[in-house]
């Protein structure tokens, strides 16, 4: 046995081998079928089981679906038509009810001549969201904005929107599309204004109300800036107190006076006219928008090293997460009046939004806490080392990154909340699923109709939620790629 063995003799390849295609039995349809459906007995059984399930489902519902009636004035007419067409004893779906009432499922009891207003608000929402949700890619932003513009303007035209507003919406979209290309940061201004404009478009009335509400924020900011020179502590207190005082004592009167001077009113629509998906979306969106700041505060408090602050935040979050939303809704409808000064009485939708906000904030806090925890410590340290104080570090460095990481979680929270808005039926609001269906059934024409409204509402929910969940998955993947 030698140190250097025969086989270790030198070897040099003089010509490189080109790549070859893989052997035949390793590709093709048969191979796919074999490896994906029938590899082994267990898999074959599963495949057969799957086919069986699909066949059963289709078999059961096919007849009912194919016997669909789209044109009828009432359930009895539907039944008659089905019997006429498909013979005695056959059953079928009566989609005529959807055809007749789908506007009601969508807009509730919103005045039909004003349907264009929520439509516009919803369309412009995409402009407001563009910098937040679609900031990643120019192409996607372009697609979203253009699609939203076309659909919204088309819908507004069909719903008979006044020319002024059509032009306005078109102008906003055009400006947004241009801004998205040139200076995306301009879009943020619209995002900031949108909550106030949205409220105005939905509820109508005087524009001065939202303007004065916005004023409160401006005043808070001014107070912060002014007092900030004196002491950060005072600034913080001023930032909270000044807007609060303004809103409680002055804003209402100021809005009225201003309205008297220059009238900026559109027809008002009372909350009790909200229903259907309009109600769900309104509650869901306001819940998310309002719960975001509250959630941020709670998350920061929960991560704080101050014992009392942390404890209170934990207690609040755990309390809210420990009770069902339905209980909180009952609090909104039954108990909130006990907790507020005698004689205060405000809109049930507003009360529900408050409770939904509080509910969502607890979940949001957990989502954002996750985002905060995902940031490397180095970011905090670098901010410290540069001399930024706590709030500046949070605002400039930590939160922008943490919120971005949290967007998928926020979207999931929103999906959950959007689905949960169906529970408002238990406090007498017209959610699309139960109350609205029941309201439709309460008309003599459609009394007794059962499956069709449920299926319709379910499908719409599915489309919206599925779309959003896919979107959040897409975001998640993107973020994973970015954050390597």
């Amino acid at each position, binding site marked *: 046995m030698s140190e250097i063995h025969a086989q270790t003799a030198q*070897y040099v390849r003089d010509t*490189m081998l080109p790549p070859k*295609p893989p052997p035949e039995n390793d590709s093709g349809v048969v191979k796919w079928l074999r490896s994906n459906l029938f590899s082994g007995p267990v898999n074959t059984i599963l495949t057969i089981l799957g086919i069986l399930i699909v066949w059963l489902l289709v078999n059961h519902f096919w007849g009912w679906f194919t016997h669909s009636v789209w044109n009828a004035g009432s359930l009895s007419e539907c039944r008659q038509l089905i019997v006429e067409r498909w013979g005695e004893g056959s059953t079928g779906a009566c989609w005529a009810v959807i055809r007749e009432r789908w506007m009601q499922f969508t807009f509730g009891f919103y005045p039909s001549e004003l349907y264009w207003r929520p439509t516009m608000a919803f369309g412009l929402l995409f402009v407001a969201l563009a910098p937040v949700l679609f900031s990643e890619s120019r192409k996607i932003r372009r697609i979203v904005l253009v699609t939203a513009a076309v659909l919204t303007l088309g819908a507004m035209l069909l719903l008979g929107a006044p020319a002024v507003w059509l032009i306005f919406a078109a102008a906003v979209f055009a400006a947004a599309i241009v801004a998205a290309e040139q200076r995306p940061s301009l879009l943020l201004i619209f995002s900031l204004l949108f909550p106030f404009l949205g409220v105005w478009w939905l509820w109508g009335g005087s524009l001065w109300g939202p303007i004065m509400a916005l004023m409160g924020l401006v005043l808070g900011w001014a107070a912060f800036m002014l007092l900030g020179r004196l002491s950060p502590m005072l600034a913080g207190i001023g930032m909270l107190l000044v807007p609060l005082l303004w809103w409680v004592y002055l804003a209402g009167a100021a809005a009225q006076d201003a309205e008297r001077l220059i009238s900026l009113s559109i027809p008002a629509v009372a909350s009790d006219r909200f229903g259907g998906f309009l109600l769900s979306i309104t509650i869901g969106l306001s819940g998310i928008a309002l719960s975001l700041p509250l959630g941020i505060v709670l998350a920061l408090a929960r991560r704080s090293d101050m014992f009392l602050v942390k404890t209170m935040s934990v207690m609040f979050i755990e309390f809210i997460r420990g009770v069902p939303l339905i209980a909180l809704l009952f609090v909104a409808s039954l108990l909130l009046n006990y907790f507020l000064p005698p004689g205060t009485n405000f809109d049930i939708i507003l009360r529900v939004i408050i409770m939904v906000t509080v509910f969502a904030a607890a979940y949001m806090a957990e989502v954002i806490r996750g985002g905060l925890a995902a940031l490397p410590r180095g970011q905090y340290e670098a901010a410290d080392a540069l001399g930024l104080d706590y709030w500046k570090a949070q605002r400039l460095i930590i939160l922008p990154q943490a919120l971005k990481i949290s967007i998928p979680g926020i979207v999931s929270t929103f999906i959950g909340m959007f689905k949960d808005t169906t529970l408002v039926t238990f406090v007498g609001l017209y959610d699309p699923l139960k109350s609205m269906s029941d309201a439709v059934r309460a008309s003599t024409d459609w009394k007794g109709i059962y499956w069709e409204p449920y299926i319709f509402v379910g499908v719409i929910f599915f489309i919206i939620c599925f779309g959003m969940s896919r979107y959040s998955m897409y975001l998640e993947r993107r973020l994973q790629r970015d954050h390597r």
Partner: protein
Amino acid sequence: MQVSDEVAISISNMNKWYGTFHVLRDINLTVHRGERIVIAGPSGSGKSTLIRCINRLEEHQAGQIVVDGIELTSDIKNIDKVRSEVGMVFQHFNLFPHLTVLENCTLAPIWVRKVPKKKAEATAMHFLEKVKIPEQANKYPGQLSGGQQQRVAIARSLCMQPRIMLFDEPTSALDPEMIKEVLDTMIELAEEGMTMLCVTHEMGFAQAVANRVIFMDQGQIVEQNNPHDFFNNPQSDRTKLFLSQILGH
């Protein structure tokens, strides 16, 4: 450090594809018992894939691999036999984080070799001493430094008393200070006559212990030679280019 005539691994005309991508092309390689082979080559050249084919972590599609007289086919029994004869150490250690160091080392002997626990633990302690970390036996992998973890990974493989050891870039995830301690362990192992296949870029190590250096590129064995000639007198242009990059740095 003697090499026997006995063949430990023999690979002939082996080909492998990932989908339609031809990763390994016509590989022919015979490894004798007691040989220490270092495999080098640019990233993506198929070094890891080759090594992983030897204990069937990847399947090859054409050609033959015979390990210790057992041909690797889809027969599960053969695969199990081969795997318990061949130890493998990964780049990222892949220790089991939920088990202590000792449990990591005794898991396979107990469940695969059916060794009594006491005996398995004694063996494990023996190998832990060999890699110089007997005092860490009851810690969890997460509590050790990278170099210590890699040494545990080596000990874990040794506990199965394999006749062949495969190393896939065992030091490339380590800090410079820790590389040395792992290499020392491997050198010691080599001196005991273990058959070793090692993918590494540590040329010092290659020169010190390898019988043979194999250079791979584009899924092919481009050059093989004894370390001295390989480094001082490379034949192929590719090898020269590669060496200039590695050593010039």
